């Protein structure tokens, strides 16, 4: 599979050659690294003519040591008494320099400050305000995090965690320091790279969305069909039972981040559901799952059916199963699905889940929090759909109401999220940072609307974006984005009709556009192809605004007043 390209500027106070070598060999992205000479942090940040600022990068990674930023902190390492306010002033200056480059990069990542070598303070003085290294290091990191919190697209990474994951003995290398001016081992750098990748994936909407779970010996101890629900090991005064309960609690907490949960288990459906409903220690309830397949069929087949029903991409799915056989089967049949090897000991499950990070997200919108409910409503809609012969007959029963609105400030985060996360029904797959999006919106030629929908089963929230660039009576369809959850409900046709109506009223005859093919937007291709606008060879198209094509009298459409 073709990897996404990511450009990263590295600015550091130590020799980062090994870090760069490891990063370039990372397989998650195709990395383009722009390096600067080490120990030139302030010079590079203040030099607008530096070669690394010639082209805007995706990431700028600023890795400094505390003594390289704060001369006052450096005094502490020589056991001199210091003034905390001077440390804050040093950080203020450093941060003012960092802010100078924020327009040259989509995001800025900085590891929190740790010492560049193992340090043993005097026990009595560690947390002394004027002499304590630990006190002042905490102060520096706390102060920096407060400054970062006020900025968008700035992220502070937890390098203390990398240190503890490696162990101090293996994280530092005095030999590398004295020979190369590189304080850290490759194992430490690998931890850093892992977090950079996870954070960048979450910012780009590449985090996983659905967790499919087995039941026996995965969510509870024991085989329910054999021991009965009363004898399952969950909670209670039982070490394994407690581990399973903690595991369930952690899984449930993923729901708050918009992660969908589903079940795929080889069991009698009624037996398994009875256990979920009746066992008093079950943390996860049937309501927590957006879908389930509990039967004796092949799990790979069941998973495919569930993913199709939920309209998700396979690459957004994770499958947990204690059985190596089932894992191997799913891995082989569905290689795009992430199938981690669960630890052999269930007591390690909760910690394993915490360390997985594939569900990490950088922003949580209202839609994320209620995503499970939205998908459950979707299941009800699909069941209803099966009862009707024609699409229009089914849509009529939904009592669908579509609202097209001008972009409102409160809808900004969700709009940006849709723009950057939607893959399948996306005409141009434009990915913009918040700043770029803001700038685009402010341009006089830019017109953008959000699409909201609801029906008798619930509110979908904002599910689409439509945008036009209009210059001198010529319109260009920039974004045509619709959440895959609602595709096939005539909302996409309504969006086309609205575009035409808007242009007619503004005396624009032709709407130009171009389908930008990606690995994931074949759904969008099919839609525009169905409208006879594009084919496999011709991706540019023109829509005549005068042409009225669709009738949607069975759908209520609310539109904004035209300018």
């Amino acid at each position, binding site marked *: 599979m073709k990897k996404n390209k990511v450009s990263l500027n590295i600015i550091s106070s130590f020799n980062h*050659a*090994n870090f760069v*070598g*490891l990063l*370039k*060999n990372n397989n998650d992205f195709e990395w383009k690294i722009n390096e600067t000479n080490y120990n030139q942090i302030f010079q590079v940040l203040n030099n607008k003519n530096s070669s690394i600022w010639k082209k805007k990068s995706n990431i700028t990674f600023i890795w400094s040591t505390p003594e390289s930023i704060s001369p006052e902190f450096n005094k502490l390492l020589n056991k001199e008494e210091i003034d905390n306010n001077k440390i804050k002033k040093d950080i203020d200056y450093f941060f003012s320099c960092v802010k100078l480059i924020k327009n040259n990069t989509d995001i800025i990542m900085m590891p929190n400050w740790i010492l560049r070598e193992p340090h043993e303070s005097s026990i009595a003085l560690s947390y002394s305000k004027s002499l304590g290294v630990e006190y002042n290091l905490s102060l520096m990191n706390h102060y920096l995090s407060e400054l970062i919190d006020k900025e968008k697209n700035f992220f502070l990474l937890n390098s203390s965690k990398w240190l503890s994951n490696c162990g101090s003995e293996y994280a530092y*290398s005095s*030999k*590398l320091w004295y*020979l*190369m001016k590189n304080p850290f081992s*490759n194992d430490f750098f690998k931890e850093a790279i892992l977090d950079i990748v996870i954070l960048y994936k979450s910012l780009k909407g590449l985090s996983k969305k659905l967790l499919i779970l087995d039941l026996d010996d995965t969510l509870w101890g024991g085989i329910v069909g054999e021991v009965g629900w009363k004898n399952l090991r969950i909670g209670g005064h039982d070490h394994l039972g407690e581990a399973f309960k903690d595991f369930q609690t952690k899984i449930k907490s993923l729901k708050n981040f918009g992660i969908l949960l589903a079940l795929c288990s080889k069991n009698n459906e009624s037996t398994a559901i009875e256990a979920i409903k009746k066992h008093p220690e079950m943390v996860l309830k049937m309501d927590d799952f957006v879908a389930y397949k509990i039967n004796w069929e092949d799990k790979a087949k069941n998973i495919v059916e569930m993913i199709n029903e939920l309209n998700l991409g396979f690459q957004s799915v994770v499958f947990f199963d204690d059985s190596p056989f089932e894992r191997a089967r799913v891995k082989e049949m569905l290689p795009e699905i992430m199938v981690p090897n669960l630890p052999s000991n269930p007591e390690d499950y909760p910690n394993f889940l915490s360390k997985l990070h594939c569900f990490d997200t950088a922003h949580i919108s209202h839609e994320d929090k209620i995503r499970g409910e939205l998908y459950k409503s979707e299941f009800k809609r699909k069941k209803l759909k099966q009862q009707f012969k024609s699409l229009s007959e089914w849509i009529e029963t939904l009592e669908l109401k579509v609202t097209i609105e001008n972009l409102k400030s409160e809808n900004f985060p969700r709009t940006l999220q849709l723009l950057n996360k939607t893959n399948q029904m996306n005409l141009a797959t434009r990915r913009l940072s918040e700043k770029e999006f803001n700038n685009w919106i402010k341009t006089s030629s830019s017109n953008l609307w959000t699409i909201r929908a609801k029906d008798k089963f619930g509110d979908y929230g904002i599910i689409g974006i439509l945008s036009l660039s209009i210059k001198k009576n010529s319109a260009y369809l920039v974004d045509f984005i619709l959440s895959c959850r609602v595709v096939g409900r005539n909302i996409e046709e309504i969006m086309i009709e609205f575009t035409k109506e808007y242009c007619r009223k503004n005396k624009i005859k032709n709407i130009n556009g171009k389908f930008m093919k990606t690995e994931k937007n074949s759904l969008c291709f099919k839609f525009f192809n169905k409208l006879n606008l594009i084919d496999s060879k011709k991706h540019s198209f023109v829509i005549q605004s005068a042409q009225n094509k669709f009738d949607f009298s069975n759908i209520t459409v609310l539109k904004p007043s035209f300018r």
Partner: protein
Amino acid sequence: MDEVVKKSIDKLNEILPKKKRLINEDSTHLIGSKSNLESIDLVNLFINIEQNIKKEKNLSLTFDDITNNIDRLKTIGSLKSYLKDKFKNEKK
């Protein structure tokens, strides 16, 4: 000792671009015009060897031991011979 060298090369290859990666064969050049390695790569390789010898064999090799014998380390084969030679007595 071959295992120590192999592990050290594997670790070095983690940071090298594909084209520069070392092939673990006795004839592969480490130093000189036929070598693809830069000085920083050699430093990394020798540090890896020093660490792996300590870890795997509990033997001590200093960076100075290596730099003082650099003429004997032109290829992977000669590096292995040097290490075997140096620690011959410790083994016994």
